């Protein structure tokens, strides 16, 4: 079978968010938490309320449920890149995770006109693999969201 080409941008993985992307590969949704006070962060941040140890020593990546609600959204009719031509119209949303942090992604498998602020959502993992795509050098997993309930 002929492999496809991945035409969307690749994730911008760096040292700070690598654990998060590795978690996605395992289908785990991680947030960054202060071990001292339990405050949740995303992306990587020093704790705002505690005395911090060097290099985030007092913080750790923790697996969470991946559930949240729609904080804000738009409906994209004209894609900013041709790579999204097949996806329009699609909903791009800021999701407020149950733990508090916001993250942005597309809400898939929905009628865009039905999406409203505060609707509950959960993460959906989409694997992008070397087996399927010729130009993908290493498997990665994208976190999309879908409406629940």
């Amino acid at each position, binding site marked *: 079978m002929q492999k496809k080409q991945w*035409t*969307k*941008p*690749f*994730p*911008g*993985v*760096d040292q700070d*968010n690598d654990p998060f992307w590795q978690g996605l590969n395992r289908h785990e949704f991680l947030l960054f938490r202060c071990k001292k006070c339990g405050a949740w*962060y*995303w*992306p990587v*941040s020093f704790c705002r309320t505690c005395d911090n140890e060097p290099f985030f020593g007092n913080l750790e990546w923790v697996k969470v449920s991946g559930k949240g609600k729609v*904080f*804000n*959204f*738009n*409906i*994209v*009719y*004209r*894609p*900013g*890149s041709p*790579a*999204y031509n097949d*996806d329009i119209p*699609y909903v*791009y949303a*800021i999701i407020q995770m149950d733990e*508090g*942090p*916001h*993250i*942005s*992604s*597309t809400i898939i498998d929905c009628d*865009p006109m039905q999406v409203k*602020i505060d609707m509950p959502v959960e993460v959906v993992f989409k694997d992008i693999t070397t087996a399927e795509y010729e130009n993908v050098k290493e498997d990665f997993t*994208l*976190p*999309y969201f879908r409406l629940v309930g």
Partner: protein
Amino acid sequence: MSKSDFTRKYAIVGYGETKVGHLPEYSGRTLQTEAARLAIEDAGLRREDIDGAVNAKGEGGGGGTGNWTDGFPRVLGLPVKFYYHVGRGGAQASYGLHTALSYLDAGVANYVCVAGARADWQKSHVPARMKSEPGRSGIWGKELGDAAAYTHHSLFATRHMHEYGTTSPQLGAIAVAERAWACLNPAAYMHGRPITVEDHQNSPIVCWPYHIMDICLQSDGGAAFIVTTAERAKDCKKPPAYLLGIGTGEHIDHLWWEKGHYTALPVDTAKEAAFGQAGIGVDDVDVFEFYDCFTMEVLLQCEGYGFCKKGEGGPFVATGALGPGGSRPTNTGGGLLASHHIGDFTPMIEAVRQIRGEGGARQVKDAKIAIATGHGGELLYPGMCSTHTCTILGK
């Protein structure tokens, strides 16, 4: 409020703006250099007078590694003592100006040329032979669907609508007002093309809640200005536009939990500093040149500068106050929405024009004080611009 030592110490004494629009035949470097040449000429200076230069880049911290503006002083032959890049997105001109002031203050330089350019339209129409492979974006969201400025900027509008009941026709009133100004500006891209709120409502939805008429133009064009000390300004060819105050605001230190950032820009500290230095209030300002990448940014600045109460920007702009003949003349050249987009060079240079009385049909009568703002910088996760700048210029 008392005036500070800063007020009237420096002035913008020359500006240059190339033709703008769709200019695939010119590189960004060439557009920027041509603007710098025009600015020096406008100030009545010689190239050898310019001893400092700042390349005010459109790219913010979020991305863009283009090096096409590697040296307008080299191209033009400016004997500068310093030259470097300030990259702050839509606040590029403002931060370029601030950078210049520190060197003037220290006596390191006498005349500093701040120049920038955008080659945004041509970038999205690159011939196949110039296309590069899609690479890693380095920015959250591009791979997930946040592929354009409007796919996150429009979130300001959604949230303001949700919290305050603002409507799309109210945003349309901003587009209508700026288009009316553009129709008084022969150089504006939308000159001769007035619109109504109905036109705005009938225009295609690019990214709900934004219609195409909520979104600024993409332009090719260069812009530059010369800044010097008040004493030297007196000897220049044109009337100086004195700096009465400058201020900046930041959201860079905040994160996602600052939810108010979806319904406000960091205007407060910028306003406080600039108006404090100038010793004036907002009601003393005759002309407002607000950075207007999208309609909601204008509305948020109307609220931020106190034209109306927080949350009441929608009904306020619907009164037509921003347009020609309105109580708050705003974006008198047509702004980024209807004239051209060279970052915040667009508002800055229009403010100087109004102070000089060079506005032609769009000149605000007896304009003595104008403000120009910038907006941009890092894209805060997951979709807010971090910075706001306020520059007050006066006769």
